[in-house]
């Protein structure tokens, strides 16, 4: 699909308005101009965040547009914000919530995906349909009543409350991915293990689990994106400052405005973007795998 070499000189349709060769050239030019525009628009903000985070406070406040820091304006001092106890709490909270969500989603979607793929049970189709309604969960619609409920149960400001809410949001998609992925593993492999005396559990652990690693990575990546970027649930369910995750906390810092400056905020923001950037480069095929709907 990627090798787009124009087929030699097979100009069988000479009645075209534009000859074949020119067409190919125009097409190619359009493709690469499009690619450059996309690269510019998508890449520049990230680069801008990076280069701004490496500049002195004075050079940011001067408002002069510079495309890269010069010798006199370069500093890595901005990254000291990561050692600020408040910001560090936010980052640690975000990590706790993200790890918890990813683990919970991976385990539950693995179990349910295996069940959907291997057991032929009653109302299975209905169950899959109910799963799809999970797309309708909206953080604000669920979050407001959930806040009142968690308040009674004592889960407000507790990472567990946030993890449960985020996991439910990631679930429909992740169960579907695991279901489809386990279907691609031939069940005859498991059956031969049972013939050799293995239990269903052994067969699951030794045969299914190692083979569904790509599906698991896709699920983990998707739930990571949900938990790492979540703002709405965290804003509603974690009001106390020491419980806040990074997105909520950093917004509070910048809206208060006095203790922190843009340079610090951008340094912290770039730090939090490093895992997404790494995943976007190295795990992009898994991300696509998760979205192959049919």
């Amino acid at each position, binding site marked *: 699909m990627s090798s787009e070499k124009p087929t030699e000189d097979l100009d069988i349709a000479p009645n075209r308005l534009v000859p074949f060769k020119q067409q190919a050239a125009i097409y190619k030019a359009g493709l690469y101009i499009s690619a450059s525009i996309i690269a510019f628009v998508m890449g520049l903000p990230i680069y801008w965040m990076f280069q701004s985070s490496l500049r002195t406070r004075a050079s940011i406040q001067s408002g002069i547009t510079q495309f890269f820091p010069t010798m006199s304006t370069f500093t890595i001092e901005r990254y000291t914000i990561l050692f600020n106890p408040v910001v560090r709490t936010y980052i640690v909270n975000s990590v706790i919530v993200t790890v918890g969500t990813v683990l919970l989603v991976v385990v539950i979607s693995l179990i349910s995906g295996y069940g959907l793929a291997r057991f032929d049970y009653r109302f299975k189709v209905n169950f899959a349909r109910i799963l799809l309604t999970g797309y309708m969960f909206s953080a*604000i*619609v669920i979050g407001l009543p959930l806040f009142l409920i968690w308040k009674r149960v004592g889960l407000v400001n507790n990472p567990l409350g946030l993890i449960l809410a985020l996991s439910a949001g990631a679930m429909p998609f992740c169960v579907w991915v695991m279901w489809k992925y386990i279907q691609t593993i031939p069940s005859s492999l498991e059956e031969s293990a049972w013939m050799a005396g293995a239990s269903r559990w052994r067969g699951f652990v030794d045969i299914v689990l190692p083979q569904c690693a790509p599906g698991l990575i896709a699920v983990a990546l998707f739930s990571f994106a949900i938990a790492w970027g979540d703002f709405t649930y965290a804003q509603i369910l974690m009001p106390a400052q020491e419980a806040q995750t990074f997105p909520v906390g950093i917004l509070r810092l910048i809206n208060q405005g006095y203790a922190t400056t843009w340079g610090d905020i951008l340094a912290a923001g770039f730090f939090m973007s490093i895992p997404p950037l790494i995943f976007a480069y190295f795990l992009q095929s898994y991300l696509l795998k998760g979205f192959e709907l049919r």
Partner: protein
Amino acid sequence: MLYRIYMSVDRADFIRQINTEGVTVGSWTIKSHTIWGWLTALPVLLLYILIAIIPISFAIYASFHNVLLLNPQWQFVGFQNYFEIINLPTFWGSLRRGVVYMVGSTILQTIIGVWMALVINRITFGRKILSAMIFAAYLIPTIIVALLARYALDPFIGVIPPLLGQLGVWNPNDYLLGTPDLAMPIVILVSTWKFSVFITIIVVAQLRSVPAQFYESAKICGATQWEMFRDITFPRIKGAILVAVFLRSIFMFNKFDIIWQLTAGGPGDATQTLPILAYREAFIAGFFGRANAIAFVMFLFLLMGGIGYFKFFNPSQEVETEI
């Protein structure tokens, strides 16, 4: 009865029976697949009950009460909250702005998302790095995108106002997000930057399943790029685009985070949509009952959308093909 069966056979036998054949109680048989199937479905169902069914029922219950956070005694007020929100001038304005935001950003996202998907599907040079740049927008937290936009638009230190000033289209000393007429278009543009990639990922995943021979044979028959797109590519991705557009519309209608981070609904209420209104009613005005009434009205909108989704796209067919 089950207990008697349990006692009548020895334990290992019973477990083996459940595992292989199922349980028979009188004339009523439960197949082992049903037992194990539902056991595996149980965690998800419990989570759904806890995070969807209970909160939404609770929202309905709370919407009929006057809820004050500090007072555990709720006062039953019937439909008063609903009458109040219907009579709230900001409610209808928020609904209208929410629809503008939803439609505007979904259209832009679809066009740009499909365009990006076609480009990264066809490009050969620098494909991986370009995909990474696009997919990064999906994985980077919304807050960072919103803060970058606010930084770039800042009248004192931002990079965009001087640029617009030089072009002569804008007074660089004014804050663009603080201008009622411009706040909504800018929020839509920033949302498009962040969320177009959702459509791109779905479409690219779909495009990868189109066999390369289709294009080769079309080329041998002298098809132009446009004809190949019209007759091979587009029919393949049409369904995926429809699903993606539907999901995006729902998500954008419910979008709270990026609007709150960029403008918090302001200036005035120029960017206040229903989610922002619900949040403000709850946590700034303190009317939890009213906020839950708004949340429930939003849920009804979602439900209508969901029913439409099942009617038009019939996802159960997709489910059935999987079995």
